């Protein structure tokens, strides 16, 4: 017992799907400008898995060691079987989390979730002002979200607020944190926009300046000092201003498994953008085989696939070369170093993006909101001018 290591098991690579994210539907009543869902999601809104199929996924993943379950989307509450899924998750021993916009969360449903053993609800909030909240979601949902927050608190749930940060709300960090405190939030995730899916198309309109991010981080740290353990604040840093990439998904196929609405299994949210990939589907394949044996899950595991400058880099274990999707979308090479890295031969693409985001003309382009219509238009090859900087559709 001498070497307690603070009671925490050492952080070893284990390749076990500890986190299961069920992107249970791509349908959503909101139209957020920064949504990370694929812009071609309209192709995947049909053929959603049935309740029984989801229950089988939960059982199989749990046997493989999955513990944390995120029920996400789209807006999961658009399905009427979340109650059944929650009951099953609880009986299997998952720590379950409903990730919601709040739209569709009624008194009746939240009571059923509580009775069924749902562990927590993560509510997305967008700003302290109704104007900006409604603008970035392209809906009138501000007041409803406030009401839902109160309902979550009232039922004794831990209040987890997720606020995606972008140019429109980054100036309100202090007020957002004060709002979270007033709502009794236990956890607040200030998630700087990561540029995938819809947010990548709208990058010039969403990207804050370096000064804004530094200021936001400073305010967040001060607020943390003040509030202590009462409210935990996560500040997800935006990688564009960093010199090294993030260790995306904590490593490809290491601990995260995502099952999408139609049953495709992905190692990360946006993996569908990658070339020459054939993601297995739970309707045809055993989940265990998908995770351990499929070519898609093995493709970027470890560091065998790396090329220079990653391969011989002394820091490669820190970030495993960063994000494959970002590398491919921006450089056209899925095995290249994430262009975020200042050692990457493609870093100029990031610097250019940062320059572009200061260009008033580009900033003034209309936001392409996440709607079925826009998704179909993008699939049909429209909005080409907005895709010209990318090597695939985000």
């Amino acid at each position, binding site marked *: *017992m*001498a070497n*307690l*290591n*603070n*009671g*925490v*098991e*050492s952080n070893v690579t*284990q390749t*076990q799907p*500890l986190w299961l994210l069920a992107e249970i539907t791509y349908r959503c009543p909101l139209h957020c400008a920064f949504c990370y869902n694929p812009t071609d999601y309209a192709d995947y809104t049909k053929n959603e898995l049935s309740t029984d199929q989801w229950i089988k996924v939960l059982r199989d993943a749990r*046997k*493989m*060691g999955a*513990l*944390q379950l995120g029920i996400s989307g789209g807006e999961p509450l658009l399905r009427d079987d979340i109650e059944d899924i929650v009951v099953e998750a609880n009986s299997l*021993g998952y*720590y379950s*989390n409903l990730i919601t916009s709040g739209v569709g969360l009624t008194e009746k449903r939240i009571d059923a979730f509580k009775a069924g053993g749902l*562990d*927590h609800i*993560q509510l997305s909030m967008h700003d302290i002002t109704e104007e900006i909240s409604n603008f970035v979601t392209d809906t009138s949902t501000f007041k409803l979200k406030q009401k839902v927050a109160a309902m979550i608190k009232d039922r004794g749930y*831990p209040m*987890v607020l997720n606020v995606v940060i972008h140019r429109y709300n980054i100036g309100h960090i202090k007020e957002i944190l004060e709002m979270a405190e007033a709502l009794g939030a*236990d*956890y607040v*995730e200030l998630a700087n926009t990561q540029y995938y899916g819809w947010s990548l198309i709208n990058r010039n309109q969403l990207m804050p300046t370096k000064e804004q991010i530094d200021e936001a981080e400073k305010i967040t740290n001060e607020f943390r000092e003040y509030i202590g*353990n009462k409210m*935990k604040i*996560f500040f997800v840093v935006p990688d564009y201003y960093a010199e090294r990439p993030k260790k995306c998904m904590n490593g490809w196929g290491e601990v995260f498994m995502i099952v999408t609405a139609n049953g495709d299994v992905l190692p990360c949210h946006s993996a569908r953008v990658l070339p020459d990939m054939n993601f297995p589907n739970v309707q045809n394949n055993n989940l265990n085989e998908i995770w351990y044996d499929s070519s898609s899950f093995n493709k970027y595991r470890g560091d065998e696939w790396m090329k220079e400058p990653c391969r011989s880099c002394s820091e490669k274990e820190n970030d495993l070369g960063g994000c494959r999707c970002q590398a491919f979308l921006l450089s056209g090479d899925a095995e290249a170093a994430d262009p975020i890295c200042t050692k990457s031969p493609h870093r100029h693409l990031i610097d250019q993006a940062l320059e572009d985001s200061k260009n008033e003309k580009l900033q003034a382009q209309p936001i392409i909101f996440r709607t079925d219509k826009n998704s179909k238009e993008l699939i049909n090859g429209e909005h080409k001018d907005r895709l010209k900087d990318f090597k695939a559709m985000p």
Partner: protein
Amino acid sequence: MTQKINNADVYKIAAHHRFQWEEAQNCYVILFPEGMVKLNPSGGEILSLVNGENSVADIISSLNEKFKDAGDISNDIISMFEFALEKAWITKI
């Protein structure tokens, strides 16, 4: 900031946290919103006795008895309590 742990204190697993044995990982885990921690055997052993009834002294004496060969492990146990409290995994009753 480390908080002082007293022998007479009684702790429980904090609200919104779940402590459970995981067969697939062969260890105890703590689960909470946005996170989980796999505990090493000694950490898990200690927290498994944190139940809102046992005092710190009870837990120390029980583990000293169970791991006689390890010598006096009181300080290790106190350190674990301090760490768990700092992480807000446990709360004092």
